């Protein structure tokens, strides 16, 4: 059976030899492709670009704020460290009997220092207790030693019992001293740098 379908023939309109209908169809095709490209390619890309840029700027702002805060805190820390340099250094140093004897020689003659106990103090510190025996001329020497301890290179606490016994011209003094130092000075030193 032969189908008898009539396809309408597009009329050919030409102006100065240009096929108007064909060009119009190509133009329509171009517009459709452009609109499709915008809908399928460009619009999602622009949207994700905007989203990414917004997130980028937000993260960058956050980073800048934290960097600024970090710099300020670091500056504060360094200032605090330099302000308390003596305290921090004193806690790192070991007790040296000879040095302490030399330091105290201005005020008293130390006859003996004996370590009696070593304990952990407040998790991070090591407390070593010594019994110190010395000869002094007057109690004033003892007061001066206590005052001078503020400038000594170790952190020393004078503790009870304290015994003054008169012996001819001198006074025999027996007392407890406690030396405080960082439990792990090496780690603290690394941490500080």
């Amino acid at each position, binding site marked *: 059976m032969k189908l008898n379908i009539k396809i309408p023939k597009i009329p050919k309109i030409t102006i100065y030899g*240009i096929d108007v209908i*064909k*060009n119009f169809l*190509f133009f329509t*095709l*171009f517009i459709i*492709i*452009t609109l499709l*490209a*915008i809908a399928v*390619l*460009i619009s999602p*890309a*622009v949207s*994700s*670009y905007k989203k*990414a*840029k917004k*997130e*980028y700027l937000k*993260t*960058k702002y*956050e*980073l800048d704020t*934290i*960097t600024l*805060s*970090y710099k300020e*805190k*670091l500056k*504060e*820390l360094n200032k605090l*460290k330099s302000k*308390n340099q003596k*305290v*921090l250094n*004193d*806690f790192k140093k070991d007790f040296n009997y000879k040095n302490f004897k030399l330091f105290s020689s201005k005020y008293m003659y130390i006859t003996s220092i004996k370590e009696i106990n070593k304990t952990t103090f*407040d998790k*991070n*510190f090591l407390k070593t207790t010594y019994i110190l025996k010395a000869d002094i001329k007057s*109690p004033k020497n003892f*007061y001066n030693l*206590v005052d001078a*301890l*503020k400038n000594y290179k170790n952190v*020393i606490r*004078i*503790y*009870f*019992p*304290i*015994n*003054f*016994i*008169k012996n001819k011209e001198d006074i025999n003094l027996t007392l407890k001293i406690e030396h*405080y130092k*960082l439990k792990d000075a090496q780690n*603290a030193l690394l941490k*500080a740098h």
Partner: protein
Amino acid sequence: MYSFTKPKKKPIFKEDTKLWLIFIGVSLILYIGFAMFLEIKVLLYKKDINKFNNQIANLNKELITISKEKEFIFTQKALYENIMVKNELMKNSIKNLLDLIPDPITLNSIYFDKNRLIIYGITPTKEIYNMLMLPPLESIFTQTKTYFYQMPNGWYKFKSENYLKDSQ
């Protein structure tokens, strides 16, 4: 049949069709190129965001470390000041106690403990001791006991035991 013109190859597309196809093709390439450019920018932004996030995480860790370090410096400072203050207080309390000893009384030994003070000395009379030395000791300590031993010259050796109930 003979023709005076030579046969020309018939092009598949006419000139204007070719132009349109090239124009549409170039436009399509430009659209795809632009979309790819944006996607590359997105990828670069995401890479930067990841880098920034890592830096933020590191800085946050550093901030925590700084905060801990500061706290530890304050702990050390507080302990140091506490020790120095306690040394000063102890010195002053010993000084004040020794300043209490009146002139006629001589001390042989004085023993300071946390809650206890033991004094050995010599007094010309019990009355002098009871008048000049006992009242201040009684005002400081909660319990005071004194033992006298008479010496051959008539003076008295004494032992004074003084106690505090709570640590001070």
